[in-house]
């Protein structure tokens, strides 16, 4: 199981954000994107998700183009972006039930367990509207746990989390990587992932 990018190029508003970008992510590895604001980190993550097409180059999952795989690729990925994807008028459990249904359901982790892992146990039946920003962020990160996704694609996952929240999420990452998961992310915070092999790509360079 691996993700490979070959000679990616991205153009936005007539500016070339990056070109000839190639990398490879294998189980247990982290792809950490760095760079200034507007350097194309989010665009690259959206290309990796298959939401956006690169202007040149291609991305393969186990040797097959992700745009041809479509839903078969998405069964292995989970994405948490700037916008949480949390419905404020649904409870935490209802939000996660939908997320579980949208993904590949062959996953043993129950919704209660997932909420417990992000430190939201006791909030199962509360409306997401009443959550603080950090709690909403943790709820959207709990989505990663309820599907069988092997590749987590995360855009600034630590936004609005406090120190405790950050350490909770970091332990999720370590656990995921130790079980052969992959991670592609951007972060302004320094990420503490002791064991993992981290590939850093600086898009401003």
């Amino acid at each position, binding site marked *: 199981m691996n993700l490979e990018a070959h000679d990616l190029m991205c153009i936005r508003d007539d500016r070339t954000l990056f070109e000839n970008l190639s990398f490879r992510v294998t189980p247990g590895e982290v792809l950490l994107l760095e760079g200034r604001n507007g350097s194309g980190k989010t665009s690259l993550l959206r290309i990796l998700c298959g939401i956006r097409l690169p202007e040149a180059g291609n991305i393969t999952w186990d040797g097959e183009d992700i745009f041809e795989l479509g839903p078969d690729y998405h069964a292995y990925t989970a994405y948490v972006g700037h*916008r949480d994807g949390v419905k404020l008028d649904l409870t935490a459990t209802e939000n996660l039930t939908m997320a579980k249904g949208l*993904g590949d359901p062959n996953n043993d982790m129950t919704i209660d367990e997932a909420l417990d892992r992000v430190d939201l146990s006791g909030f199962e039946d509360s409306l997401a509207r009443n959550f603080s920003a950090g709690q909403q962020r943790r709820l959207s990160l709990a989505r990663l746990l309820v599907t069988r996704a092997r590749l987590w694609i995360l855009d600034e996952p630590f936004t609005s989390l406090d120190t405790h929240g950050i350490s909770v999420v970091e332990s999720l990452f370590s656990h995921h990587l130790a079980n052969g998961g992959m991670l592609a992310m951007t972060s302004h915070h320094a990420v503490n992932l002791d064991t993992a092999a981290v590939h850093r790509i600086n898009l401003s360079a």
Partner: protein
Amino acid sequence: MTTRSTSRAFTLLLRRDLTLAYRQRSEMINPLLFFVLVTALFPLGIGADPALLRSVGPGIIWVAALLAAMLSLDSVFRSDFDDGSLEQYLLSAHPLSVLVLAKTIAHWLITGLPLLIVAPLLGVLLDLSGAAIWTLILTLALGTPVLSMVGAIGVALTVGLRRSGMILSLLVLPLYVPVLIFAANAVETASAGLPITAHLSLLTALLALACSLSPLATAAALKISLS
């Protein structure tokens, strides 16, 4: 991905949208209120002559239904786009067209079905005959799902734009016209006591066409809007 889990995703999404609509009831009332008010205002504006009302009634009710459907269109994907749920559908392990079909059906149940329920009352208000009222319900049952299906394509194309109202109307209205013509004409024909099989067949054909093609077109349009 198995068909079973895809159909489960379909029912989950349908049920979730209905739950959300129930918790945001005021949004659901808006188009319905518009439909009732516009129709009820016409007798005040053009005079309460029963013969006149009987002849323009079918047209008025159908135009009001069409505008009410348009008024509610934006809500199909707007909130999903704003909170990022749309990206999650796109990145789900199931075909986007199946999820889109669930969203469109939910939207029709929330905004189209209530029109069907109050339409008989409005028919009585405009002094339509019994046969005409039955035909009205039948044409609304066949026609309003087409409005939702076709509208979903337009919304999917414009959801990424900031002020999409104007362009959405321009995109969608021409496609609504055939439904309006056949449906309103069917009600008039029925009140004249003539058979309406041809009208109903045409409306059913439009519905079949919309059901089979609209989810695919909407899914493709959403992919363009999000990229």
